[in-house]
């Protein structure tokens, strides 16, 4: 796969071009994600049986940033809603609320997921890590520092999600290539277009983490 949007762009001999379409021939992603292959085989913790009525709140316990939090939730509350509104952890942002932008990215059992597409009750019994969880006391974590040092944001709205995506990527693959970084943050849109800085921050973060 080419390293920019022009990469591997023509389709056969047809020479098809059409303004507004950038054709991406998808072949790179498979080999690029090889590094994570070992993780795929892990077995899942299976949560216990549960019944909740509509519109009633039920007490559940969520494991967030190393601590158990008991909380009353409705079945329809998303993890994003509970983090922000019940726990006041506003580091996780709400963007599209439809799985398209990545602002709400958190780690669940160390793996990046969208909190807006996750019911809070489905996150029971799993380890949830949010932006706040990457701090140690008042100190920023390595990925956060890398974003700061590389100026990897403009308005900053997408930044918490980008940081969580990079954190998840580096936990799985401590030495990602540029292409692996691009894939790793491909679920996080930046309206300000700070991508080149974000990619650089991810590389910097990999270095900082190694120290």
């Amino acid at each position, binding site marked *: 796969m080419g390293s920019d949007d022009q990469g591997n762009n*023509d*389709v*056969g*001999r*047809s020479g*098809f071009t059409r303004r*507004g*379409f*950038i*054709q*991406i*021939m*998808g*072949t790179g*992603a*498979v080999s690029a*994600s*090889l590094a*994570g*292959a070992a*993780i*795929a*085989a892990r077995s*899942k913790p*299976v*949560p*216990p*049986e*549960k*019944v*909740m*009525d*509509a*519109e009633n709140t039920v007490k559940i316990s969520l494991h967030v940033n190393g601590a158990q939090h008991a909380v009353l939730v*409705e*079945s*329809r509350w*998303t993890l994003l*809603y509970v983090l922000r509104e019940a726990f006041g952890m506003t580091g996780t942002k709400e963007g599209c609320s*439809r*799985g*398209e932008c990545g602002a709400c*990215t958190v780690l669940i059992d160390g*793996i*990046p*997921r*969208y909190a807006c*597409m*996750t*019911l809070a*009750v*489905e996150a029971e019994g799993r380890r949830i890590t949010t932006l706040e969880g990457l701090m140690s006391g008042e100190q920023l974590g390595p990925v956060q520092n890398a974003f700061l040092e590389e100026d990897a944001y403009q308005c900053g709205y997408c930044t918490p999600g980008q940081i969580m*995506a990079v954190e*998840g*990527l580096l936990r799985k693959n401590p030495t990602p290539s540029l292409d692996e970084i*691009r894939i790793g943050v*491909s*679920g*996080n*849109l930046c309206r300000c277009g700070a991508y080149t800085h974000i990619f650089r921050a991810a590389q910097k973060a990999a270095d900082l983490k190694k120290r």
Partner: protein
Amino acid sequence: MLPSFSYVRPETVKDTVKHASARGAALHAGGTDLIGCLREGIMDVDKVVSLSALADLYGIRETADDGLTIGALATITEVAENPLVRNKYPGLAQGASEVASPQLRNQGTLGGNLCQKPRCWYYRGEFHCLRKGGDMCYALAGEHQFHAVFGHDRICVITHPSDTAPVLAALGAKLRVAGPDGGKTIAVENLHVPPRDNVLTETVLGPGEVITRIDLPRPAANLKSSYRKVRARRSWDFALAGVALALEMDGDRVENSRVFLSGAAPIPWRSRSVENVIRGRRLDDKTIAEARAAIVENADPLPGNTYKLELFKGVIEEELSAMGRPE
């Protein structure tokens, strides 16, 4: 805020089937499609039945006869990265790695990917179109540049959004399904429903029917599989045009082939015309030129999406050329 619903997470498949058989119940696997549909008011759901406590639905294992069985709850990431999948069915690993974004692959499951709702913008928007029980297809007369060029019969012109379904169909995968009437097996190629049979549903699954596992037959020693997808942007996007190939080679000749297209039709679209052209032939320039023509045979493009025909020709040419090259 989502509309309210009751929630149940049973520990046995039997209880799951019972809960899911009730009117207004919907299964929840990874939730990446279901939550979106609830938020957009596409489905009327008063009970969400979670599959996540069903231990039998997890894991990817080799079977006694050298095939593979994939739990319906295996995530798309697990499918894409599993070494057995990558070795035996590289096309499936490619298909899975082309789905959505990393976060959605980490959360979405293979079973859910096969049963996801269409992505037509009228359907996802506020239009009460044919597929939602209304009386017209808005896309047919309106914006349809990403819609179907085959198999729509000008009834409903969605394309099936799954990147895994065409590969699973090409590989001859079968679904194990639990339901109110006991267990049954459905070939993936027979899972999806074309609009002319019933425009109101996407799959043949009835109320209470749950996919438990996806079984792949033992790969023939000479099997080569691949999936290629063209999309409009580099970050996540659905297929504009895609081709899944499962070819059994006899030396440099194609002995058997199964060819399914994505981004083409309301269901994963089998291209028998390409299969007929390449069967028994070497993948040389002449065969490939004929396959280019064959792939668009019987197409019924709409005014706004004829460009897809050129894409399909290009993709089949590239994919067959790659297959024909000695390793």
